[in-house]
């Protein structure tokens, strides 16, 4: 069978896989490191410093973060574009999740674009120091604080609900019962990581 014909299938499966591995794993790691900011400024700087000094950092960043997110984000916009929201007629829970998954994907992409510019590219280009103080000064503006709150919650929602879809897409949960239980599991994921993200933002801002 010509593999050319399965291009779309392969891309969709790759898109689903990358969303969890490595992007989802990276998101969880990122939120855990950020959460050190709730302990103290030094604790955060130490944790962030540890990540910064990982060997082959630039390879890790490109291989596990930039390239997967670029693919996932750009292909994701295409996926959102080829769907047509019909909540007006069919306002059921899963249809809401379907719409929110696409909406939070777009918001997250915009947020990540800004976030990478501000906290990574600025460092690479101008040598801006990335530490607790940097975040504190960014988040001292109420606009940026709320922009970050929306961005972080969108990212966590997109990950949690995407995790549910991942389990369906790969055929790991089939029965309505298993899909329902998974809904509760990813709800816990959303609450836990959403809490960690917001707590870190508050710690930086205060």
């Amino acid at each position, binding site marked *: 069978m010509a593999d050319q014909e399965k291009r779309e*299938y392969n891309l969709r499966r790759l898109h689903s896989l990358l969303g969890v591995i490595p992007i989802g794993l990276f998101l969880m790691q990122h939120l855990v490191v950020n959460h050190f900011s709730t302990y103290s400024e030094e604790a955060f700087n130490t944790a962030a410093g540890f990540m910064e000094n990982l060997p082959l950092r630039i390879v890790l960043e490109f291989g596990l973060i930039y390239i997967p997110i670029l693919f996932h984000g750009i292909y994701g916009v295409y996926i959102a574009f*080829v769907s*047509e929201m019909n909540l007006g007629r*069919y306002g*059921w829970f*899963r249809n809401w999740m379907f719409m929110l998954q696409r909406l939070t994907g777009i918001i997250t992409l915009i947020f990540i674009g800004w976030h990478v510019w501000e906290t990574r590219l600025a460092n690479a280009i101008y040598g801006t120091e990335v530490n607790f103080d940097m975040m504190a000064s960014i988040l001292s503006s109420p606009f940026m604080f709320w922009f970050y709150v929306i961005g972080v919650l969108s990212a966590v929602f997109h990950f949690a609900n995407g995790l549910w879809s991942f389990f369906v897409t*790969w*055929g790991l949960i089939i029965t309505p019962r298993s899909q329902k239980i998974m809904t509760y599991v990813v709800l816990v994921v959303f609450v836990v990581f959403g809490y960690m993200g917001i707590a870190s933002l508050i710690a930086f801002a205060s």
Partner: protein
Amino acid sequence: MAEEKKSIKLIITRQDDPDGKPYEEEFEVPYRENMNVISALMEIRRNPVNAKGEKTTPVFWEMGCLEEVCGACSMVINGKPQQSCTALVDKLEQPIKLAPMTTFPVVRDLAVDRSRMFDSLKKVKAWVPIDGTYDLGPGPRMAESKRQWAYELSKCMTCGVCLEACPNVNDRNDFIGPAPLSQVRLFNAHPTGEMHKAERMDALLTEGGLQDCGNSQNCVKVCPKGIPLTTSIAAVNREATIHSFKSFFGSDYHN
């Protein structure tokens, strides 16, 4: 009970030909007991006069079995895609709004062309091939419990309601929709059909196939036959995962 509900009000989205502009027309037909939408439409056909009293063309629609097994009379009734034969007037809010399903090209008025669904069934080989030059014999037996389960999937009448409700079946997307995905599961489960499983999976994973499902799960909610479409989709997803692994890591033959 002297004629309390004297008439039924209907607002029908009409279209004169496949390229025509849709327009709405109101009708009032005399009420009878136990009417369904089709008998109301028949009343209009008998006396094609609209609510303003003007003579008009009779409203065109498709129907077949009149007992919700053929799928031909599907339309959007008060915003909900369903069969007009089992849509009982007494249970509908008035005025009853009738419109053709939007996913399919309109032939005329309420009749749509569902060819794409039949093409999809051909594409994914939703059948058990038994034709040949000699008698193939009776074939393997099927467990009764499995037959009963498979019967539920076989109730699909390609009515198009699941495609109508699916947000990924639209002009920008060539997704074949939920119905044929479930049919693949049905024929893959059949003891003889199973012999062609790999072929069916290969066809299902081409452009517009299984991967385009976005899990909005509207299909399973609207299916008039209660077919577990989303369970089928997840099951075929698992089959696709296994199929891909076998194709990539396995040998040069697998089923």
